[in-house]
């Protein structure tokens, strides 16, 4: 007879859709997103919170989904890369990444875009300095980062409605 493991009822909102799941508390957010919800845009790379490929937003703040328990998203809003697309339209950051060729293999890309989206949610018009500091925790092996920073900056510069550049 298979051992019975403890389970828990998890109610989370992912990309504005409510999910009611029965999971084991030990399941990570990355596992639940990828394997239970089929949202494979979030990648697991280092599995140690260092590379940022698994970045998702929980209530607007970036977290490493690989090292966050799914239960930590209980009653919270989770936003993955898939959630940045609205009515089939790409997010300005996604458009900018395309325009600036800010990816090659693409594996780090969802993490970078979600991280950058979180930054723009927290700081109205981040300076280049602020962008570099915020994205310091995301690793890319392909691009050399310049195109990524240029892409994010282009979105900041395009947003004429916000206040002048600040921290």
């Amino acid at each position, binding site marked *: 007879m298979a051992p019975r493991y403890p389970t828990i009822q998890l109610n989370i909102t992912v990309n504005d859709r409510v999910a009611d799941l029965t999971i084991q508390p030990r399941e990570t957010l990355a596992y639940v997103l990828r394997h239970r919800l089929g949202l494979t845009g979030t990648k697991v790379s280092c599995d140690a919170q260092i590379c940022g490929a698994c970045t998702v937003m929980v209530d607007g703040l970036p977290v490493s989904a690989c*090292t966050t328990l799914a239960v930590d998203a209980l009653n919270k809003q989770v936003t993955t890369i898939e959630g940045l697309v609205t009515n089939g339209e790409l997010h300005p950051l996604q458009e900018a990444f395309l325009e600036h060729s800010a990816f090659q293999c693409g594996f780090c890309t969802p993490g970078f875009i979600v991280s950058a989206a979180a930054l723009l949610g927290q700081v109205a018009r981040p300076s280049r300095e602020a962008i570099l500091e915020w994205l310091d925790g995301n690793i890319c092996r392909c691009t050399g980062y310049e195109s990524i920073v240029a892409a994010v900056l282009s979105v900041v510069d395009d947003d004429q409605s916000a206040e002048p550049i600040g921290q």
Partner: protein
Amino acid sequence: MISAFEYHRPETLEEALQLLSQLGDEAVVYCGGTELIQIAKTGLTSFKHLIDLKAVEQLQGIDVNSGTIRVGAAVTHYEIERSALVRHQLESLASMAAKIGNIRVRCSGSLGGNLAFADPHSDPAVYLLATDATLVIVGATGERAVSVANFCKGAYETVLDHDELILEVRIPLQDNRTSIAHQRFTVTERPIANVACRATMGEGLVLDLGLAVGSVTDIPVRLVEIEESQVGRSREEVLGNIEQIADAASDALALRADSMGSIDYKRNLVSVLTRRAIRDLFEHE
């Protein structure tokens, strides 16, 4: 995969302490889990019960009271970094918090968690040691206050009993005669070495000095002899002594070679960071 456990989410401090008493050795507590969940994933630790402290109100919040800034144990490094109150009252605390790990670690990781885990490579520990901070610990038998100096016992070792929690961190506020510097060096995310220095000046002379070095020994260390040697000196004298101070700092520590660097490498880092911290404080008015 992480070993199976039961998850608990107490909503009050009393509930949390009760759970800890009931479950004893089989339970561990967490907030951000940036350390605990990581070592659970690699199988370095396992627990039958996990107590999530994030819903406990008493562990949250930042406020100022009678010349002390109080930071709840569950407050994240990011919250500290962005707090208008902290930036106004103790800016150096915010700028230290802003350097920890990476943005994701800062958004999840808590101040209490960092101190309780007691990884030798810690920015908060060395900063709080230099600033004479106190931890308020709470357990079944009540509250007790412990200085950061007495809280840290060794690598991954603190004075916390199994059924105790850190409630909050209290840092004495200083007037504008005091300035604080925090210098750190890393090539990854955990500091290889860090130095925190607090200087209080009066009529151009050093009234009080706190100098702590962290991450190169099991627990951060206050360099009391160096501190005492500079009290009563003028800015110019301290700056004139800077090489001796920097050398004395690296000489004062029993360093060990490890994956973070050789003894010489760490000695050099301590020396350079001490020099930078002293310059930060003494070169500008």
